[in-house]
């Protein structure tokens, strides 16, 4: 917590963000065990297999899902905590897997994304719980869900000389928490259509 606050104030974030995270959580700020109405986050499954066909999946919502500024704060955190370095601008992937599509290795539900960030995952995802306060992680959950492609009724995707047919307007020209709203024809490794 103290480390995170230091980082924010010394290096990275706007003063407002620093203030928000520097002190104790305010009265309205949810704490890690609160969002599930008493249901522990620890019971959130990361697998889709339930022995005996008994699912233990507490319905834990993102406590900030009604906060209209959470997505933008999440985008700021995504950059400030170097998530962008691995997952790339707009979540295109690189060192870490892409977040821009609708494939989820460790689950797409808010609590599953929360736990993936807080606990880390064995193949390279760092565990952020020691560094980030819970509301900063929930903001990241809001952002990650915002940049993911909308679920489709198709099970898979086709790769061919004519598919995919679109790409996002690249991030060097447009910075947005909703990058799928701006697309252009697929360039197949050539210069992007956008030029400014």
């Amino acid at each position: 917590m103290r480390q995170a606050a230091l980082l924010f104030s010394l290096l990275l974030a706007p003063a407002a963000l620093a203030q928000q995270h520097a002190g104790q959580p305010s009265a309205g700020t949810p704490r890690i065990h609160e969002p599930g109405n008493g249901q522990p986050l620890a019971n959130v499954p990361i697998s889709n297999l339930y022995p005996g066909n008994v699912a233990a999946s507490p319905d834990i919502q993102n406590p900030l899902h009604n906060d209209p500024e959470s997505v933008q704060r999440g985008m700021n955190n995504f950059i400030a905590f170097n998530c962008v370095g691995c997952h790339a601008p707009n979540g295109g992937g690189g060192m870490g897997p892409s977040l821009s599509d609708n494939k989820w290795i460790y689950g797409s539900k808010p609590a599953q994304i929360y736990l993936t960030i807080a606990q880390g995952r064995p193949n390279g995802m760092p565990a952020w719980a020691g560094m980030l306060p819970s509301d900063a992680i929930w903001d990241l959950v809001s952002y990650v869900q915002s940049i993911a492609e909308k679920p489709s009724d198709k099970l898979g995707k086709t790769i061919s000389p004519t598919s995919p047919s679109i790409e996002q307007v690249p991030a060097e020209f447009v910075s947005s928490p909703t990058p799928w709203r701006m697309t252009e024809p697929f360039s197949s490794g050539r210069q992007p259509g956008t030029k400014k």
Partner: protein
Amino acid sequence: MKTWSIAALLCFLPCAAATAQDLNETSKDPKQWVMAPRDYANTRYSDLDQITKDNVAKLQLAWSFSLGIPKGQEAAPLIVGDTMFIVSPFPNKVFALDATSGDLKWAYVPATDPASQGVACCDVVTRGLAYDRGRVFLATLDNHVVAIDANTGQEVWNTKIGDINLGETVTMAPLVVKGKVLVGDSGGELGVRGKLTAVDEGSGKILWRAFSTGPDQDVLIGSEFKPFYDQFKGKDLGVSSWPPDAWKIGGGTIWGWISYDPQLNLIYYGVGNPGPWNPNQRPGDNLWTTAIFARNPDTGQARWAYQLNPHDLWDHDEINENVLLDLNIDGKDRKTLVHPGRNGYMYVIDRESGEVISADAYDTVNAYLGVDVKTGRPTPNPAKIAPLGKPAQDVCPASPGAKDWQPVAWSPRTRLLYVPHQHLCMNYQATEVGYIAGTPYVGATVDMYAGPGGYRGEVAAWDPVKRTKVWANKENFPAWSGALVTKGDIAFYGTMDRWFKAVDATNGKELWRFRAGSGIIGQPVSFQGKDGRQYIAILSGVGGWPGVVANAEVDPRVRNGALGFTGAMQDLAAHTAAGSDLLVFALPSDVAQPSQAAPSQAAPPPAPPQPQPQPPARQPRPRRHGRP
């Protein structure tokens, strides 16, 4: 009995003084391939000529082996005696195989930390193993150097030389010089402080460590240090050319190639980019990033250094290989090193003094306006420096440079370098970034794409004396595999769209091609089997920085992914999927003639300069267009 086994028997433990000589001699035996770059000069030239221009079309698969790890296969096989040693990407399994039959002798499986994958910038590759005196030396992604008994596969010692929680990994092939296993580090995108470590091959003890940034004491700059250019003279330049303390997280990693001149007793290697990529956060020349060091291998003390890209703006690492060549330039015999720069210039440097003799563009370059050999400094192109908050556009070469790690080959017969490389430009937006240990420290939004003409790679033959491109084959994708050239005057290389090619070394004409299972980014080698046949070996398995679009969860529709390489590789997955096959080729027995290979005891002196195969073009001018 072969040289190596005599050496192994006689010198089983205590004859360190003779070791370097032994490995140097063994490396000249054309039947073997005992270090990744083939020899200390890094020539990648095979003195075997059973495969000729006339019969290469009959080349066929002799055997193959699946490594079982579908990640980028950049490693060079080693052939020592009758055994081939090969290493997989993370978790860095090592396999020993009979080089003629392909029989598996042993496998060594390290318990490499899976978390290390999260701090590997550009796929989880390794570029190979090292060998000396009956031991194979492995460097794992999670920073362990391991000695393995070459006969039994048993672990002898392991030494940890870095920390993944500081962003450190190892991807380079170690090189053994005078009983020391030399290993650098990767992590130039994670604020690592780059260093080269010398580990005693007998005990695993760390003997010396030379940092790339910081005070002279840490960089091992002392009284022996005699740089050629004035800007490299002065105390603690690795501190004063940075903002306060920025050198501690300033990159300068070492993940490419080391060469060694036994006569001068100097090792040579290139240093990586400064961190972060965003240049606005590190005013100054940022020494000794993007530099070439000459060092005494006994102590690590620096003899000279030359920085190619002061205050690098574009991630133009200079880890590329330094090929040690004795060239006659303007009537004078010069001991040179030839460094195909990531910045797009082919440097010919006096390897005794560090003086730049020439530096000529070998691909499209507009990031710089040229290199002044008098001052040693390149001239950045002011037109490519964008106003704060705006992206620089159409910058060439792109961040991976005109050439990245993929090593060139040199033929003493044609006197040409065979240069596989990229042809890419980019848009580049610098952004603020804060340092958090163990996370990326980049600060750039990059978007690469095909350079002028629409192609993305090229394999060129370059004359370092005449300073001209003699021929060039364009490739659709970056030519990310190394090159091999043989006494049969055939050059071999692979492509990311799954071709393994043999071309006429004198003119680039394609003589043979093989359709591999996956794209090729490995290092071709040649050796002679027990059956007297000449073999060519290469790994197939796409990946590396440009290949993650096809072997990992990377979205081709988001151009800025993979540190911007996605933009240039969007369609790769329509040409190849991941793979991990070792492919070994030979002529059919009825075609293979007894080899004219030189005796194994000592290699012949380099052939005298041959008549040029053809008058080189005055300007770099590719002779071939498009893909055949």
